[in-house]
């Protein structure tokens, strides 16, 4: 099905099942432990062996020698694979560094060998016996040091004459903000079980993008994609770190080939930070010029980040093209080559760090203008793409988000003068920030089957990374086929199913359900035909198909055998003619200990405008999870770079702190009533990343309101406040 004109009325609009706060259909499986995660696949008949990775202990250079002799003779060892044994490997089109390094070493903890043994413990013990010597090369590890050489590039986006307009502006801001490297730190580490049957490879894994994985596994191992099957029905969080094939898949496949047995691997937790990907640090310079009336006349956002050779920048400036009005604009990314581990997507790549900076800048600018930060944003709202005014937003309710949130949160009671609200030993403050994330759409397919019991089974390689995909897909099929949700069975995460959008970039929910919608439209037609209905008049409800006086049970259509249809939704030109984005307003109250400068969040509210909310319960969970991640980014998360040795030092969950329950207070989420007929037949958009975008700045602005201290470098830890707090010596 091609989606290329605004949607009119369709069966989803009934909202009998879609739009309802349905419990997760996979919830019972998960709370009883019956959902099989990657490392839990177990076939008692397979002679399973266990792999353990060996990581490089230098950041850059060459392996001079590798002594495997002690490891080979260690108890239980079945096979050891290094780059030498693996032979010529390719590289996935979405990988920057190779997944099995050697002799060249590209980053710290790059996998350079896998040891396979009878048990996990034996593999781990033997891996520690692999002795490696290196010829270390000098590397570049310090973004600040590299920044100076990096100026404007040809890909800078310019609208009007920024420099002139900025110089002439009555009120100006020119500040630099920094965000650190961050780790996804999801609960479930990367894990894979690989098994070969002749030249056919099956990998049970934990991955967000099944079809990408098939392609990149095939490319890496230089085998035909048709020989690769990837299965990933349950995923314990990914946040982008499982968008791509990582070393667990390749090491399991190579280990299994060498051992002649299925091999299971989980990356040890300390590998997460340096072996896999991370969100790269940024340095961001923001310049805003405005008239005394508060109208922005000039806005520039430049972002510096680093990555391995051939890596991409962290695109922290993108939202600044679209979020606020202003005739003269400049945005650009500058990319340094760094020999740190590979930087790549982490939840809301670009916008998350970009808004952490931009939305502090807006708060600062409002203060300079003597305007309320909400009013300043309202004044600069735009209903069209400011770089191309002929292109309207499909639906933009940022102002409504801010207004509704202000009322709900009690914004009016806030004293704009910093450092004035006190509660015992705590300094209290309230902050606001806008949230913005583009609504991406991706081609997405599904197969639907109707059986003689009247059960509809949906099959798609869509993944559920804890987001609720199973549930919203079941809701979609139930709505379309007029069935209760119990009569829908959803099967996900298998490359033998039709290729879907997968989970990333908050495109999954809208795109994948639209794919299921398309397949269900086809199934409805097939059913109507079978039962002799005119498919235009047929009503699917209560397990029946009805038209006029005639009603036949849906199951009847499959009485001669299962009906199976498949379709794919493809998105046409609407995203070109209309800018599709999601919007939010985040409100945060913090308390800062007047003595120790510890910052604790007291309450949070996010108001989101993101198209139709397919399931308010799972969507709310997404947003509160994102708000929590925003608090982490604002207050504690930072991969500490050792710029001498080129690695992230705090590479475990004791050193890399993420929020715990005690850090997270009352959280409230409001979804504005919205349908966006430009986005898809579902009229939905994404929320999973929106909930993170801007939260960090709302925290930072609240800290400023509490203390009068403007911290422009995340995370806002107490050391950045303590010497400026009142009463400090």
């Amino acid at each position, binding site marked *: 099905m091609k989606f290329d004109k605004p949607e009119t009325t369709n069966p989803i609009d009934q909202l009998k099942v879609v739009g309802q706060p349905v419990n997760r259909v996979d919830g019972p499986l998960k709370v009883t432990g019956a959902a099989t995660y990657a490392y839990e696949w177990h076939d008692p008949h397979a002679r399973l062996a266990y792999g353990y990775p060996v990581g490089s*202990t230098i950041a850059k250079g060459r392996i001079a020698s590798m002594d495997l002799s002690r490891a080979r003779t260690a*108890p239980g060892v079945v096979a050891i694979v290094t780059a030498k044994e693996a032979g010529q490997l390719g590289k996935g089109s979405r990988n920057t560094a190779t997944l099995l390094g050697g002799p060249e070493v590209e980053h710290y903890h790059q996998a350079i060998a896998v040891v396979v043994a009878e048990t996990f*413990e034996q593999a*781990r*013990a033997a891996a*520690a016996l692999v002795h490696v010597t290196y010829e270390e090369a000098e590397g570049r590890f310090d973004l600040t040091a590299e920044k100076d050489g990096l100026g404007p590039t040809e890909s800078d986006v310019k609208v009007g004459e920024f420099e002139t307009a900025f110089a002439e502006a009555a009120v100006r801001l020119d500040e630099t903000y920094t965000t650190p490297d961050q780790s996804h730190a999801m609960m479930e580490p990367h894990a894979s079980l690989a098994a070969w049957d002749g030249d056919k490879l099956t990998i049970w894994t934990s991955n967000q993008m099944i079809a990408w994985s098939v392609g990149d596994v095939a490319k890496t191992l230089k085998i035909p994609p048709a020989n690769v099957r990837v299965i990933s029905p349950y995923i314990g969080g990914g946040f982008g770190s499982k968008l791509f094939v990582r070393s667990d898949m390749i090491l399991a496949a190579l280990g299994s080939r060498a051992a002649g047995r299925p091999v299971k691997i989980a990356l040890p937790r*300390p590998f997460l930070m340096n072996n896999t990907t991370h969100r790269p640090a940024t340095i961001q310079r923001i310049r805003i010029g405005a008239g005394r009336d508060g109208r922005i006349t000039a806005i520039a956002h430049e972002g510096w980040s680093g990555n391995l050779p051939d890596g991409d920048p962290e695109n922290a400036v993108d939202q600044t093209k679209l979020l606020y009005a202003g005739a003269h604009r400049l945005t650009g990314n500058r990319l340094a080559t760094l020999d740190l581990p590979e930087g790549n997507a982490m939840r809301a790549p670009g916008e998350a760090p970009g808004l952490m900076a931009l939305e502090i800048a807006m708060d600062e600018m409002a203060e300079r203008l003597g305007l309320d930060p909400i009013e300043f944003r309202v004044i600069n709202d735009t209903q069209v793409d400011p770089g191309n005014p002929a292109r309207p937003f499909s639906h933009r309710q940022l102002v409504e988000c801010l207004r509704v949130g202000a009322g709900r949160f009690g914004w009016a009671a806030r004293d704009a003068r910093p450092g004035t609200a006190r509660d015992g*030993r705590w300094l209290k403050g309230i902050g606001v920030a806008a949230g913005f994330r583009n609504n991406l759409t991706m081609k997405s397919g599904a197969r639907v089957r109707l059986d003689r019991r009247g059960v509809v089974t949906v099959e798609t390689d869509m993944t559920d990374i804890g987001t609720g995909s199973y549930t919203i897909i079941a809701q979609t099929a139930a709505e379309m086929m007029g069935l209760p949700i119990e009569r829908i069975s959803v099967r996900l995460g298998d490359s033998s199913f039709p290729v879907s959008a997968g989970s990333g970039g908050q495109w999954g929910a809208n795109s994948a359900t639209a794919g299921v919608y398309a397949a269900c439209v086809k199934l409805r037609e097939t059913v109507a035909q079978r039962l002799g209905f005119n498919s235009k008049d047929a009503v699917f409800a209560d397990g029946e198909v009805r038209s006029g006086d005639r009603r036949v049970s849906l199951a009847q259509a499959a009485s001669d055998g299962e009906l199976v249809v498949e379709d794919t939704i493809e998105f046409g030109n609407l995203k070109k003619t209309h800018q599709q984005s999601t919007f939010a307003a985040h409100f945060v109250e913090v308390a800062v*200990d*007047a*003595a*120790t*400068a*510890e910052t*604790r969040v007291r309450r949070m509210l996010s108001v989101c405008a993101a198209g139709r909310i397919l399931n308010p319960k799972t969507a709310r969970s997404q947003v509160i999870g994102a708000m929590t991640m925003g608090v982490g980014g604002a*207050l*504690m998360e930072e991969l*500490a770079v*050792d710029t*001498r*040795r080129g690695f992230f*030092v*705090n*590479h*475990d969950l*004791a*050193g890399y*702190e993420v*929020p*715990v*329950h*005690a*850090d997270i207070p009352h959280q409230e989420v409001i979804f504005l009533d919205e349908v966006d007929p430009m986005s898809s037949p579902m009229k939905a958009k994404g929320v999973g990343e929106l909930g993170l975008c801007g939260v960090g700045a709302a925290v930072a602005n609240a800290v400023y309101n509490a203390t009068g201290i403007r911290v422009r470098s995340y*995370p806002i*830890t*107490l*050391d950045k406040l*303590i*010497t400026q*707090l009142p*009463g*400090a*010596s």
Partner: protein
Amino acid sequence: MRAFTYERATSPVQAAAAAAANPDAKFIAGGTNLLDLMKLEIETPAHLIDVNGLGLDTIEATSEGGLRIGALVRNTDLAADERVRRDYGVLSRAILAGASGQLRNRATTAGNLLQRTRCPYFYDTAQPCNKRQPGSGCSAIGGFSRQLGIVGTSEACIATNPSDMAVAMRVLDATVETVKPDATTRRIPVAEFHRLPGDTPQIETVLERGEFITAVTLPAPVGGKHLYRKVRDRASYAFALVSVAAVIQQDGTGRIAVGGVAHKPWRVEAAESELPRGAKVAAERLLAGATPTHENAFKVPLVERTLGSVLDEARS
């Protein structure tokens, strides 16, 4: 993790003798620290002596009016003990400020005293670390040192002792009771129990080879207000950037010990005489000669301000 042999100790002396007989042996109590370190091959004992079957898990009154806490009393039980909560509140509060419920259920009194540093370089066997591998150098100096020590450090090591409980034990003038392989016993004031790093940061306590902790005793209660303030980057489940254990009397005198700043719980009795004059003066005495790094210099004002806040609370 390396392969190891395993035995269950039958008595404290037998445990001590078994440990002395095998230079690569280690006692295992709750295992919450030792096992983590073994998995990373930071500790590589060839033999484990499991002491969990030895009893030593009761808290008894001493004839001096104090308490004797068995070495294997779990942190949860110690923090919940009615006498501890009434007379030694700082100890209960310090324990509850540490780790998590599950960990405290396993962690023992002796094991807690002997838990090892959380210096991140100590945890990465590929990095030089004098504590883990004597003579290899100290990566933290000139590296990521935000969490590390500011007083009593050395050129060999700037690590801190991460225990919360030990800070309270120090302020309470606890005594560690041990038995040696030859069955002799000794009582070590907790003040002398942990060592400064000096040139041998790998040697963290004065315990001798095989020496086994049987109990920790607390002297008779001293009254006063008992406070423990732990300052950290998140609200729970994090090691202290700085912590202050305090027992403050009505007249403003009292005792204080500080965690998160040194290789041992940091207490300077001379600084306590300054307490009535306020936190600034007391903190100056307490941290005299401090040598913070660029990254952890904030701990100096942080100690002063935290102390000030604790004194305010004591007065209120």
